[in-house]
């Protein structure tokens, strides 16, 4: 099944025409409504009329996460708050959140895109789908929810945190689909196994995203649960989940490119690369009203193809991600930058600025351990004192990144001091 055959299967020429028309409109729109872009274009001596088609996109400036942070909270919004009906936010590099706003039409487009993705994953109005992404500022929960409702599926808004309830309802409600992070689904499969419920579920499809995962992990999920698992991609800056998803042939993720124009850029020159060549993914939000972004650099490494897929869709496909351009980590679906940890630790006078993050996956759940050294006079001879310190640091970290971390106090002078770029992360997971 294809949700929107007109858009998902249009010829390449038609698509380019549509993208060209939308880009011209977008550039005109941001020039007149977003000071940030107007100034950038003026600096380059550009006028909206210089953009005559999608091929001119390379003349336009890039946008980065820093730009969103520098214009915190609403500086890049193109409409007044009276037109914004929803705010989402994700963690930024220095503790300040990246804030995005949606107009009513943006939410409609979002639901449309998620509906396309879920249809790719075989979900229809006859399905009962459990949405087990977090509901809240994170785009995962409400994003998946909107798309599933649009399809007309029976949506069970589980959110995260209660696996027992999730598995019970999966059986009792006869859930046929689930949307959650792949690592959480793997954990759920273990809970089902322990409870002897594996042969009582009716699950057939999973829409997994919000963190990188491998083909091997997909195969494992599919075998354990007798389902097909699909990779849904998105980022809050662009919209949230639903920017792209893979169909049953699993040969790359179909981008909703009538709404999000994808470019893959050479990481050194930032010029677009040929199809099949690895580079940094960038998106231009062709139809967004609330916070339209031009050539937003995702920092995700991938390659692109424009060949027609066996499923009949003609939309561009991006390959599974091969890594990140920056040092961002995705832990339990949450974006974490080492610099956030560093900034948080600087607030704690009892610890030195040296730290090491150990990221691992235990029983299919991401774990984060942070090793710190105490300033010498704060080592105590009481276990209670060390425990109180651990708790205090844990609290500060939790406040900063929204994740609980295990804090390990180590002996002084034992964390690696490196010259030049310090290594602060040991990631034992094999995600790419």
């Amino acid at each position, binding site marked *: 099944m294809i949700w929107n055959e007109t858009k998902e299967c249009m010829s390449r020429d038609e698509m380019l025409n549509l993208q060209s028309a939308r880009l011209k409109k977008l550039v005109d729109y941001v020039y007149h409504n977003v000071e940030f872009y107007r100034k950038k274009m003026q600096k380059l001596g550009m006028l909206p009329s210089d953009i005559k088609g999608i091929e001119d996109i390379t003349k336009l400036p890039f946008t980065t996460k820093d730009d969103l942070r520098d214009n915190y909270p609403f500086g890049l919004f193109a409409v007044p708050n009276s037109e914004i009906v929803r705010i989402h936010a994700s963690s930024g590099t220095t503790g300040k959140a990246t804030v995005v706003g949606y107009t009513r039409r943006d939410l409609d487009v979002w639901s449309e895109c998620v509906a396309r993705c879920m249809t790719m994953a075989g979900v229809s109005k006859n399905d009962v789908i459990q949405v087990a992404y977090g509901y809240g500022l994170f785009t995962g929960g409400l994003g998946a929810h909107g798309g599933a409702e649009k399809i007309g599926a029976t949506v069970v808004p589980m959110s995260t945190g209660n696996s027992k309830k999730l598995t019970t309802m999966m059986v009792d409600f006869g859930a046929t689909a689930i949307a959650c992070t792949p690592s959480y689904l793997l954990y759920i499969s273990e809970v089902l196994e322990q409870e002897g419920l594996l042969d009582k579920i009716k699950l057939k499809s999973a829409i997994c995203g919000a963190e990188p995962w491998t083909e091997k992990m997909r195969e494992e999920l599919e075998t354990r649960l007798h389902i097909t698992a699909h990779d849904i991609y998105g980022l809050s800056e662009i919209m949230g989940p639903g920017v792209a998803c893979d169909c049953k042939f699993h040969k790359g993720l179909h981008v909703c490119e009538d709404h999000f124009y994808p470019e893959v850029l050479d990481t050194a020159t930032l010029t677009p690369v040929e199809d099949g060549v690895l580079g940094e993914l960038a998106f231009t939000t062709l139809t967004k009203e609330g916070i339209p972004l031009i050539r937003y650099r995702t920092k995700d490494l991938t390659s692109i193809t424009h060949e027609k897929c066996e499923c009949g869709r003609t939309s561009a496909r991006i390959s599974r991600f091969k890594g990140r351009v920056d040092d961002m980590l995705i832990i339990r679906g949450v974006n974490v930058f080492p610099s956030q940890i560093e900034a948080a630790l600087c607030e704690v006078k009892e610890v030195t600025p040296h730290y090491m993050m150990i990221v691992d996956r235990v029983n299919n759940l991401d774990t984060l351990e942070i090793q710190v050294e*105490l300033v*010498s*006079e704060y*080592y*105590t*001879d*009481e*276990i*209670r004192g*060390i425990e109180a310190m651990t708790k205090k640091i844990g609290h500060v970290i939790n406040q900063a990144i929204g994740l609980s971390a295990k804090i*390990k*106090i*180590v*002996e*002084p*002078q*034992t964390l690696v001091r490196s010259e030049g770029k310090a290594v602060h992360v040991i990631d034992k997971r094999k995600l790419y």
Partner: protein
Amino acid sequence: MTSKQLSVFIENRKGRLSEVLDVLKENGVNILSMSLADTTEYGLLRLIVNDPALGKEKLSSAGFSSLLSDVMILKIPHVSGSLQQLLKLIEKADINVEYMYGLSIEKAEAYVVLKSSNAVKTEEVLKANGVETISPDELMKM
């Protein structure tokens, strides 16, 4: 009367304890008593030594986090129930014992190391009840 206890924070890593002991041995620091409180992650080694200041200095320069803290060394009769009685006194005075460990046992007396939540008050209570604490000088002679 309080004495100095030398304590060291050590991670639960193989060989770490013996490295501490190496440093003490090389510098002729003699251990009179020790207690090791351990958790899964780390341990706190508490030592009564003949020269705590020297021990701390040498351990610190070897990269260990060592510190000196005040503890009391009490002399109690070496008979059943004397420790229990001692704790009763402390409990009645509403003082908490942070930790405690044995130092040595002689024919008639036993010595215990005590760290309480309130050193001044503990001392008063002990004095009032005729419990002897020994001085660092006496400790050296033991």
